[in-house]
């Protein structure tokens, strides 16, 4: 590993501005790591030439003392973001050969600020999964392994390529998306920071849609400061997304220095679920102590509808996905399997193009939206969603942020849960509530399991209060002093 890839995004940015390093050197170092890191299967499409060109252009600007907030910073892009003229797969066979003629707003914002694209990162097919095993392009492998074991573990999902690439230093930071935990759970599994912003903070335009009322883009990064910097560029109003919020983007990085003296932190008692491993419970307790020591006050709060969040999610998300994925018809883009007539062509194309989990969710969604069942399932779920959001609103009348574990376990082995959809869904038990209520959440690495795997703590904030969220996350990060790194077995 070269010294250049040891720099955080903030440190690299400062070194670039001071002309101590060039973007071409930095980008070159990452391209080398990517070439050596093929065993992780993190990238589905490396964009080597594009990266070199963009780095060169950034160097020209930096040389003149110009350039944006991310000038010359090499990033990986989750393959759910459309990138102009660069193959975009969403991890699905059905988008075979698709090269978008347009750029997603979030990635356009990053390029506007000078970032360099290293390539497109693997993810669960259409972001449906919690382990990155549903990708048509094969599973991503977690850079972390259990002590004394060479069993291949999952990097979490659906943003598994993003989390693995950041953890293994195959990029300086990555874009990701989160519909039920897809930024935060992979971050927890890989010792990285994952930030899911408030619904509407980042534009969804040009991001391949899964469940439109839940999807939100955010960064996966080395540390809290890097996540704050990336969000500052990704966020912003966009006329092309009617759910994008028209309010100024604060200086998130500046919020970090403000400390948390007097901050009120809530501990939701319903998150103390049965069967939670003791080491996760202990980590949570340590987190509480860290925040108290930094000057926060801590109190127990109640979110009584927590246990209904996952069942609600598994009605709402499949319903929206069945509607969004209706567009894959073999006519306008991607795969086409010929049939005797147009209906048979649709049916064959979608049968061959969608993987098992996507098919299951489309069928589930079609069922809950079908005549006679809409009220019993979808309408009921949307009502329970209101109750879940109300629980949070009540808690936030008493406290400023909530602290919970990010996931109920550390990373598990590839194949361990892929035969049982329900046990896979339970991974998102602590994260999914946040999407249903539209709130911001962040996962911060806070310790190692007995087996030597990273564990994360989650903070949940008020709507559009990412600044307080980041302040609290920074306090956890400072106290945890998480410096562990995976051994670079993949380069052997």
């Amino acid at each position, binding site marked *: 590993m070269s010294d250049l890839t040891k720099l955080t995004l903030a440190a690299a940015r400062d070194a670039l501005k001071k002309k101590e390093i060039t973007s071409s050197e930095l980008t070159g170092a990452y391209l080398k790591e990517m070439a050596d890191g093929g065993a992780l299967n993190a990238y589905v499409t490396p964009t080597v030439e594009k990266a070199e060109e963009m780095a060169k252009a950034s160097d020209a600007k930096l040389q003149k003392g110009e350039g944006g907030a991310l000038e010359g910073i090499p990033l990986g892009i989750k393959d759910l973001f459309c990138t102009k003229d660069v193959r975009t797969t969403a991890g699905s066979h059905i988008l075979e050969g698709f090269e978008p003629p347009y750029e997603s707003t979030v990635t356009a914002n990053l390029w506007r600020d000078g970032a360099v694209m290293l390539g497109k990162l693997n993810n669960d097919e259409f972001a449906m999964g919690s382990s990155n095993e549903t990708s048509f392009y094969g599973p991503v492998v977690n850079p972390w392994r259990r002590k004394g074991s060479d069993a291949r573990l999952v990097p979490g999902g659906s943003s598994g390529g993003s989390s693995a690439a950041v953890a293994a230093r195959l990029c300086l930071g990555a874009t990701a998306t989160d519909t039920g935990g897809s930024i935060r759970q992979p971050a927890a599994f890989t010792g990285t920071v994952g930030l899911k912003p408030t619904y509407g903070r980042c534009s969804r335009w040009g991001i391949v849609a899964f469940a439109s009322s839940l999807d939100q883009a955010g960064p996966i990064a080395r540390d809290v400061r890097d996540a704050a910097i990336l969000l500052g560029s990704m966020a912003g109003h966009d006329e092309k997304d009617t759910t994008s919020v028209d309010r100024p983007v604060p200086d998130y990085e500046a919020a970090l220095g403000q400390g948390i003296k007097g901050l009120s932190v809530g501990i939701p008692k319903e998150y103390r679920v049965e069967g939670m491993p003791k080491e996760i419970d202990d980590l949570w307790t340590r987190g509480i102590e860290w925040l108290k020591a930094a000057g926060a006050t801590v109190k127990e709060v109640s979110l009584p509808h927590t246990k209904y969040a996952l*069942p609600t999610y598994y009605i709402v998300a499949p319903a929206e996905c069945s509607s969004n994925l209706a567009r894959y018809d073999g006519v306008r883009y991607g795969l086409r399997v010929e049939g005797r007539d147009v209906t048979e062509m649709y049916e064959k194309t979608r049968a061959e193009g969608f993987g098992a989990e996507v098919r299951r969710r489309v069928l589930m969604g079609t069922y809950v939206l079908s005549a006679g069942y809409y009220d019993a399932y979808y309408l009921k779920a*949307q009502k329970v969603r209101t109750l879940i959001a109300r629980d949070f609103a009540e808690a936030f009348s008493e406290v400023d942020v909530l602290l919970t574990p990010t996931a109920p376990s550390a990373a598990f082995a590839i194949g361990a849960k892929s035969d049982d959809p329900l046990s896979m869904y339970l991974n998102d038990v602590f994260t999914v509530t946040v999407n249903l209520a539209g709130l911001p959440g962040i996962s911060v690495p806070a310790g190692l399991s007995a087996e030597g795997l990273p564990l994360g703590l989650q903070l949940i904030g008020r709507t559009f209060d990412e600044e307080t969220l980041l302040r609290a996350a920074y306090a956890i990060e400072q106290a945890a002093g998480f410096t562990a790194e995976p051994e670079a077995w993949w380069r052997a």
Partner: protein
Amino acid sequence: MSVDQKTVRHIARLARIAVRDDELEALARELNGILDWVEQLGEVDATDVEPMTSAVAMAMKMREDVVTGTNLQREVTRNAPGAEDGFYVVPKVVE
């Protein structure tokens, strides 16, 4: 509520996904597993609760009713598996 193989065939038809006969049983079992589990929402009394329609309270934005993009035929059809003269090509739908 539980789904039988006939129902799976029906929803697969609605979803335009071809399903082989030997897949029906497994699909019915998987869907029933998920449906049994979401059944617990029945415990929640949500009689007078408004369904959530927007994740964040926000007024719907309107834009000027003007043309913003023109002559995009080439871009629009360039990813099509079948396109001729700027049109999509599909199997014959009208006899």
